């Protein structure tokens, strides 16, 4: 039987040991009227059949020359990353509750925490949350726990990824926490420091700062951080971890640094996979340690003084603290952190910086090429990392459709015939040229 090792003799012997005569008898405690027939599902396939089906479905999917970003990014992933990550010992283990028989997973997480701390310049990190967006929601909840303020007003710039904002809303809305939008003009695309004063009166509990922001632009994180701290608000940095190869880490923003840093971990070796599984990374200042959501691994020793690792600070967690836990999270995204740890170890500080530079460089090249096409212009000014917005003089949806027809996913349509375009290190000059040629062709052919 599929995945069941029992022989007929086994079953007989086991039933006899139990003292019942048939499998049905094992379910005698289920009220008769609640018993059901096996569900009617699609017919069972053997492995050969499902392999062929999935190969066909996979062949149908993907395969485009893509310039999408907006929160998920196409990066080179060294083959070693997933060859090791999918080893059975990582893949099929549980949360490392029995530490002595789980040192592999535990040490990886300890190293992961160390690398995330290194990348963000924060003092502590946890073992991951579900994704960047839900992690940002946890950051908001944590800020509320950390703050001594009575209000629950969280300032969230309009330059944060709208998907992150929507997720935060879903997850915090149950608790009456108020989100205060820090507006920004479409033209500007970044928080204008000049406009901040108007929020001084709001008794903000925390300010979220995206870096780079949704439009790929770099925010003035130092000024924003210092402003928030001056208001007695906590600062939550929502950062792209790959960009931190070169960008100033949240721990060094302004004069005191951000209080919490979180973000989407996907750029660190996780495939795009239509959206998941990814992971949220999460780091903070040591003083907030006891308010961290999720699992944490700590180093300790055995009776002979041998170094070892364990889950620690568990008094924060649902399985101990129950209704008073810092979060309800239990299963997190463990295996993704194994992949990310291996990715970071292979790339190292210089490799990560090189990737970040190449992304930035490629996006500059493409922006230049695209804006050379009549009818295409950049929407914003200001520095950006590896995404930018261009405005077309015609229907952006139609243009994207035509690009798709030639195998190019040109970017993400935004309002007002704008589109958000991302370029990573995976694109060659030839790729950029194809994009330019295809777009130029479409712009030439179609009417504005």
């Amino acid at each position, binding site marked *: 039987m599929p995945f069941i090792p029992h022989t007929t003799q086994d079953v007989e012997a086991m039933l006899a040991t139990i003292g019942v005569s048939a499998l049905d008898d094992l379910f005698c405690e289920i009220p008769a009227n609640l018993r059901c027939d096996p569900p009617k599902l699609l017919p069972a396939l053997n492995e050969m059949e499902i392999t062929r089906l999935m190969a066909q479905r996979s062949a149908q999917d993907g395969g485009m020359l893509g310039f999408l970003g907006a929160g998920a990014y196409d990066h080179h992933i060294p083959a070693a990353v997933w060859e090791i990550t999918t080893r059975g010992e990582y893949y099929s283990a549980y949360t490392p509750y029995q530490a002595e028989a789980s040192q592999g997973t535990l040490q990886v997480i300890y190293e992961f925490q160390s690398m995330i701390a290194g990348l963000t310049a924060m003092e502590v990190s946890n073992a991951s949350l579900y994704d960047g967006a839900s992690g940002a929601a946890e950051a908001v909840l944590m800020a509320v726990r950390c703050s001594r303020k009575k209000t629950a007003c969280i300032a969230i710039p309009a330059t944060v990824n709208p998907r992150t904002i929507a997720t935060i809303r879903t997850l915090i809305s149950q608790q009456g926490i108020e989100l205060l939008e820090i507006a920004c003009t479409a033209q500007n695309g970044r928080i204008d420091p000049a406009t901040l004063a108007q929020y001084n009166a709001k008794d903000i509990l925390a300010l979220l700062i995206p870096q780079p922001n949704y439009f790929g632009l770099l925010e003035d994180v130092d000024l924003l951080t210092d402003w928030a701290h001056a208001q007695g608000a906590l600062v939550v940095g929502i950062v792209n971890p790959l960009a931190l190869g070169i960008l100033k880490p949240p721990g060094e923003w302004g004069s005191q640094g951000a209080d919490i840093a979180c973000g989407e971990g996907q750029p660190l070796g996780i495939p795009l996979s239509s959206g998941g599984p990814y992971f949220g990374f999460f780091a903070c200042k040591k003083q907030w340690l006891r308010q961290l959501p999720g699992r944490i691994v700590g180093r300790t020793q055995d009776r002979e003084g041998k170094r070892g690792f364990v889950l620690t600070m568990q008094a924060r967690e649902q399985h101990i603290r129950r209704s008073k836990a810092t979060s309800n999270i239990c299963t997190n*995204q463990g295996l993704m952190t194994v992949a990310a740890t291996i990715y970071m170890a292979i790339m190292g500080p210089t490799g990560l910086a090189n990737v970040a530079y190449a992304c930035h460089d490629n996006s500059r090249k493409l922006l230049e090429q695209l804006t050379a096409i009549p009818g295409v212009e950049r929407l914003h000014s200001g520095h950006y990392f590896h995404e930018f917005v261009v405005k077309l003089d015609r229907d952006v949806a139609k243009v994207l459709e035509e690009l798709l027809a030639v195998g190019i996913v040109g970017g993400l349509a935004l309002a007002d015939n704008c589109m958000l375009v991302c370029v990573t290190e995976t694109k060659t000059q030839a790729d950029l040229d194809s994009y330019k040629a295809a777009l130029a062709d479409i712009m030439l052919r179609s009417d504005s």
Partner: protein
Amino acid sequence: MMVDRIIFEDSQSGRSNSHQWPKQKADCDLPPSFLRTTPPSLPEVSELEVVRHYTLLSQKNYSVDTQFYPLGSCTMKYNPRACNTLAMLPGFLSRHPLEPIETGQGVLASLYELQEMLAQVSGMAAVSLSPMAGAQGEFAGVAMIKAYHQHNGDVERVEMLVPDAAHGTNPATATLCGFRVREIDTDKNGDLDLASLKAAVGPQTAGLMLTNPSTLGVFERQIEKVVAIVHAAGGLLYYDGANLNAITGRTRPGDMGFDAIHINVHKTFATPHGGGGPGAGPVGVSERLKPFLPTPIVACDRSRQNKKYHWLYVNDCPKSIGQLSAFMGNIGVLLRAYVYLRMLGGPGMRRVADYATLNANYLLARLSAAGFSVAFPNRMASHEFILTLKPEADNYNVTALDFAKRLLDYGFYAPTIYFPMLVPECMLIEPTETESKGELDRFVDAMVAIRNEAIHNPRMVKDAPHNIPLAGVGVGRLDETQAARKPDLIWNKE
């Protein structure tokens, strides 16, 4: 003589895997104020050192692929390798979440069929796959219950009922959703105490969160009464689907009257636990909660010649509680569940419950015959059961923790211990259907052997583990107290 090193200890400045770096020498036009001044503290190690380090570390784990892993409540069954291979096909991995649906018909078809099949198995009217684990499924379910009451103007329902034996995520979720938690007692046979329930329900009751079979490893026999009591009080019923492995194809939460359910695909549907995740926690609902399901949801446009699959977003579902992640949850995990479910089909689903239950009851019978104390001796076990090692603790001063640690020496991962807390010195044992009788028999032998040690050589047990058969430098029992008292959470050059 040997040391297991931390990767940072192998780091040496200037080492590079330049074949992994982009070639371009990029000049950077960004002003220094945006840039970091010191490189991030990441190790500088060669690719071989990385491969060796993380391969060796993997060998320091017990896992289903290498050991019997009877961890109660966690359903550590075999994760078929085909699920991994097929979910990692290039077309699936390379697609960006925001690509148009035209480039994702393969993945969307699979997810759509998964939604339908999960609805069938659970007996619910509709399913959303978006929650990323059981706890997020719980959040979605409880948030839907809240939204439902609010939609009905029923705003005084501020209490969520949770049995005392419930998994910690249940009360934690209720709090996250802004509810007050009220605990319901369990009776001595492991059923919910109906008197306690009746005393608790009222106009303030938003609902009850229940798992059935419960975390005590027994089927809630009065489930119909429980449902009736809560529904009569105007509350809704939430089913924690972590224990679905006990009943697939035998009974359905939907038929019991539950309004919302989450399903841990990383339990019942054999997706891997990955040393802590990722899993996925699809939610299913009865008709009345359908409008509140979290988005996105996969829909199928049957009007055309060829089916065309597409997403429903919040705009399409105005009453939805909203989205739970930036994109669409743990799709790669869901694909694995889909492959598994396709390989089993309906009859296979029933076999899962049948053999999981057979294994649990067999192991229970053998351990009981060997003299171990069973928490609920008059009950049929579900897919798991509870021993209490209180007699051993009382007589030999050897605790459930000691037994657990010593089992590691014998090459078994330990069952869940001290949960549910209701039962003293408890061990919650879940063998799953994928283990053979031979393996169960060996586990019984080990338990008996350890008890003999407890009698004749208690130090052997109390000081365990001694020699876990894992690669590298083995560790003995680790000091968790010190870890929590003096947290050392990130590597610092010493």
